[in-house]
């Protein structure tokens, strides 16, 4: 199923991010997905060599999850493939029954574990969305006809509502919508007032937006994100909250509470939630419970 159908139905769409391992043993990922995510989120984002660290591929992992009765979202970045390989992989996704895409420019190569690699960036998020739209219209990006029935996807992209240059982000968001983007997942939000203000401006585009959350595990992680992660800012009060009860934070409970509170405060302004748990998939059910979001009936 395309998750755009869920948005159209008016559902509050829940997704979570999972990262394939560096290796081919997916047992752990599959077990967690069944245990913690299957009845709590509609779809699972599968990252594409996240942070430029080489891992098992997103597309193959998507298919494995689909065979497990889960709904995957194939994340595609422009860092490692030129336009030929990107379009080929998009067609391969259609062949494997993967219907949901999240289309990204991608982190630069030097951020990951192969800093010597050649960065590609032949296309970018906007032209990749355009390329997928062209494939859906029956043509590749060079204008050649595609044989048979064209594929159909839910085409998603990302945006950073708490960016320090949110006007530049909104301009890019508009370009993505014009190119054919049908839903957005946001970068991690810690400042509800910024998200709400952003949504007031973003609603003119008429495209659903999922509130992005990164579970704050500890103070060090928050400080690291503040210094290094684009579009993410953890306010001082929240860092103080994590510092206040060290045992509680260590147990993960403070982070869970913060996420639940963010959902409650932003829920009325978003069309869904996307949780980036970074290995804490087991805490997602608690976050949703605390936020008052009931289990779902799985869709595939």
């Amino acid at each position, binding site marked *: 199923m395309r998750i755009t159908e869920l948005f159209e139905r008016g559902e509050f769409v829940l997704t979570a991010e999972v990262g394939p391992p560096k290796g081919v043993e997916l047992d752990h990922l599959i077990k967690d997905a069944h245990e913690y995510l299957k009845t709590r989120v509609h779809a699972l984002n599968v990252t594409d060599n996240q942070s430029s660290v080489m891992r098992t591929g997103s597309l193959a992992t998507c298919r494995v999850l689909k065979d497990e009765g889960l709904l995957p979202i194939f994340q595609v970045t422009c860092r490692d493939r030129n336009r030929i390989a990107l379009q080929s992989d998009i067609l391969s996704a259609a062949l494997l029954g993967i219907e949901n895409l999240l289309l990204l420019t991608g982190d630069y190569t030097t951020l990951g574990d192969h800093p010597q690699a050649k960065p590609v*960036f032949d296309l970018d998020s906007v032209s990749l969305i355009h390329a997928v739209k062209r494939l859906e219209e029956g043509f590749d990006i060079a204008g050649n006809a595609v044989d048979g029935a064209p594929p159909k996807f839910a085409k998603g992209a990302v945006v950073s509502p708490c960016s320090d240059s949110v006007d530049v982000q909104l*301009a*890019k968001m508009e370009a993505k919508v*014009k190119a054919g983007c049908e839903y957005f997942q946001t970068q991690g939000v810690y400042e509800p007032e910024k998200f709400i203000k952003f949504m007031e401006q973003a609603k003119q585009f008429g495209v659903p937006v999922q509130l992005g959350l990164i579970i704050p595990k500890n103070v060090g992680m928050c400080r690291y994100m503040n210094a290094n992660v*684009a579009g993410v800012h953890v306010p001082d009060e929240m860092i103080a909250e994590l510092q206040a009860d060290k045992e509680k934070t260590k147990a993960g409970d403070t982070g869970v509470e913060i996420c639940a509170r963010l959902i409650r405060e932003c829920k009325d302004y978003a069309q869904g939630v996307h949780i980036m748990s970074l290995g804490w998939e087991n805490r997602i059910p608690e976050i949703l419970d605390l936020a008052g979001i009931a289990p779902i009936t799985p869709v595939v």
Partner: protein
Amino acid sequence: MLITQLKSQEAIEALAQGKTVIINCHGCKEVYFAEHEADAFQKELSANKEVTQIITTDYICNPDNLKLQLKKHTDVINAADTILVFSCGVGIQTVAALFEGKKVYSCCDTYPLPGFQGVTPLNVDCGQCGECYLNGTGGICPITACSKSLINGQCGGAKEGKCEVDKNMECGWERIYRKLEKLDKLDNMKYDAPKVRNYNNPNAE
């Protein structure tokens, strides 16, 4: 060697809005510039458009030299709405940086050829892509100012205006956005079809 090839006449005519000053650079002998073609076209343009001055000088890539060369034309440049530059990509960016609030447009596409590259600091500003983007980006080159050479806007990796690849580097697309904002040209970001690079240009890097 470099080739600076003229953009199409229609494209250049569309750029010549209001009082227009033309700057030609005949600096480096390593740059092949279509001098006679440009001369004939500029005469034609002067007949149809409000061209207030044609300036032919050299080494406009050097900001100090450029300032000196243009000193005697200060009044006519200040009164101009548009500056059309016939030079390599470096020259255009130097002019655009000098006249912050003016619409500065490129009339050439720059291609590389093997051999000496002239005196310009080539790896600084012009990627010699052969499909000059400067007219849509306020005279700031997205190929060289953006680490990923993106042409459809910022990647979202910048933090406090600094590039994710090099924290000493300004985000090229934030620079472009702020420049377009200043020029009241943010509509340039609202293109209908996303841009896609052509790596099949002769000798394009």
